[in-house]
């Protein structure tokens, strides 16, 4: 009877959460019909930070590539979006693909360089590369040099779908652009989470999880660690670049300091991942919610929320290294995105 055993990653909680996720996605798609503009903007912020956090988590949580330089890809992706719309007249929505593509191209020489370094040197190396990209972009006069530039009016008005949204929801064009950006962010976040979940359940994903748990052991059973690093680094750069393009498309204004901000695009993202729980898909989702709630709750106290955020990050790292989701998951055994393979016997009831 052994032949009828099978390997599965499915759990009851996951089936429930899978259905819940689809319902949530459906609600999120139709949300602009009811929601206020500020809620749409808040959700846009949450979704883009979530995307950045998922990619950083993929890097650091699974392959141990602790990058402090992801703002290089956020900023470069955003700048290529502005560059291609201003210089080549590309539609801003189409230019999002270029954001990802150029971030990917930047990632290739970056990887050649930073993969020669390990551990702490890698972290600092990525940061210096990001600074070099920032300072180089600041020399690019066509997109405003060191002071930055705004997205031209005609490019903004030409964005695909905006007119349709204006008519359909009966809103002004600025609000229609926010709705479009929100949908794009939703699609990006859903594709990111779905894509990572799918990837982790493939053979390569198993190799990645093995690397996360023990590099030497994974190598000994034939996992090509270097190849996995390359794949993950390039994929993360691509996704981070698109997210960067989208963030500044919605923003409408860009400058080297805001596009390559280490605090905003790397430090906060690291906090989100670590507070939520590193090395899980659920972690960044929990983390971004905590981050957002903290920001809203302490909005009236200025810099205090950053102090609280920093202290919370430190406390989690010291006392609960697997984050809030880890604490919850360890106690309940619940996994919303199960990637662990389990042996399933077909007639469990009779045995």
């Amino acid at each position, binding site marked *: 009877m052994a032949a009828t055993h099978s390997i599965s990653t499915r759990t009851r909680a996951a089936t429930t959460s899978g259905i819940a996720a689809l319902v949530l996605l459906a609600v999120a798609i139709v949300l602009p019909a009811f929601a206020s503009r500020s809620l749409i903007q808040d959700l846009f912020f949450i979704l883009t930070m979530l995307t950045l956090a998922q990619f950083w988590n993929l890097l650091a949580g699974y392959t141990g590539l602790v990058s402090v330089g992801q703002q290089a890809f956020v900023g470069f992706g955003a700048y290529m979006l502005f560059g291609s719309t201003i210089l080549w007249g590309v539609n801003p929505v189409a230019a999002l693909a270029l954001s990802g593509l150029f971030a990917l191209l930047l990632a290739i020489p970056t990887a050649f360089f930073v993969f020669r370094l390990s551990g702490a040197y890698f972290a600092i190396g990525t940061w210096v590369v990001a600074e070099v990209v920032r300072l180089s972009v600041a020399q690019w006069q066509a997109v405003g040099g060191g002071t930055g530039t705004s997205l031209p009016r005609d490019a903004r008005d030409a964005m695909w779908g905006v007119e349709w949204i204006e008519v359909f929801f009966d809103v002004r064009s600025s609000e229609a652009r926010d709705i479009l950006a929100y949908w794009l962010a939703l699609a990006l976040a859903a594709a990111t989470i779905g894509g990572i979940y799918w990837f982790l359940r493939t053979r390569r994903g198993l190799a990645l999880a093995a690397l996360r748990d023990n590099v030497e052991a994974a190598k000994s059973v034939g996992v090509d660690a270097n190849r996995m690093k390359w794949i993950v680094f390039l994929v993360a750069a691509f996704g981070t670049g698109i997210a960067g393009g989208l963030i500044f498309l919605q923003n409408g204004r860009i400058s080297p300091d805001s596009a390559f901000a280490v605090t905003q695009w790397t430090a906060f993202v690291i906090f989100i991942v670590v507070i939520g729980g590193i090395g899980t898909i659920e972690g960044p989702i929990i983390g971004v919610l905590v981050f957002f709630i903290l920001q809203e709750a302490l909005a009236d106290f200025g*810099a205090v929320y950053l102090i609280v955020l920093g202290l919370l990050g*430190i406390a989690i790292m010291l006392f609960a290294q697997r984050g809030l989701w880890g604490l919850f998951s360890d106690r309940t055994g619940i996994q919303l995105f199960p990637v662990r393979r389990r042996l399933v016997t077909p007639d469990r009831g009779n045995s």
Partner: protein
Amino acid sequence: MIWIDTIVQGVLLGGLYALFAAGLSLVFGIMRLVNLAHGDLIVMAAYLILVVVSVLGLNPFVAAVIAAPIMFVFGWILQKGVLNRTLGEDILPPLLVTFGLSVVIQNALLEGFSADSQRISMGPLETASVSAGPVTVGLLPLLTFASAILVIVGLNWIFYRTSIGRAYRATSDDPVTASLMGIRPDRVFASAMGLALIVVTIAALYLGTRSNFDPYVGPARLIYAFEAVIIGGLGSLWGTLAGGVIIGVAQTVGASINPEWQILAGHVAFLVVLLIRPRGLFPRAVD
């Protein structure tokens, strides 16, 4: 002849960067701790000196002497209470905890002192200069460079001539074996961090007198310091000085070609050195 002047200014600037980097090099070399809050600790010490100067009306040099033991105690407690728990194989915990510390320090300083930029006044010393042939150098940059050398000589003396220095080297090589010989690594690390923060206070003195500072300038200083440490090679303090000088000279040479290239040139020099020597120029300790 202008080239000689550019190089000399670059070397002196390198002294400042080496001073920023010496404390970092110390903790990195002894306990492999990547301290991302190092730049913010320098800024914090600068504010401490500023407070002592304005409250007690003292000379900045005397104020630094008062600030140094306070910073030592702060470093000791920080290491013993927090950072020791993060040390281990995984580099993420120290990285994240010091990143968190960096955000906390920056914003606490912002709450306490506002975002206005500050400066520690040194009076006539700020503009004094000496001439040697075609080259004129400021007295303050010269003093900075001399301090960097003194700090490195002093640290090397502690490292190679004292019993605590022997404990540092032993723990750096192998904390487990060192603890078998009666050394307590947690205390050794705590005193090393305290010592590093004394160096930080000296760096803060020159940071605060040579240019304006505000709560957010830490990370920019930190990156030069890290570059100096990495170029120099793990565990070599003279290497750190050499690294600082390379960054400093690259910056002044870059700036003399095009003012906008100053910082970029420093980073490019760092990348080039690392491309050729991934472990730095003079690595002493094995990673």
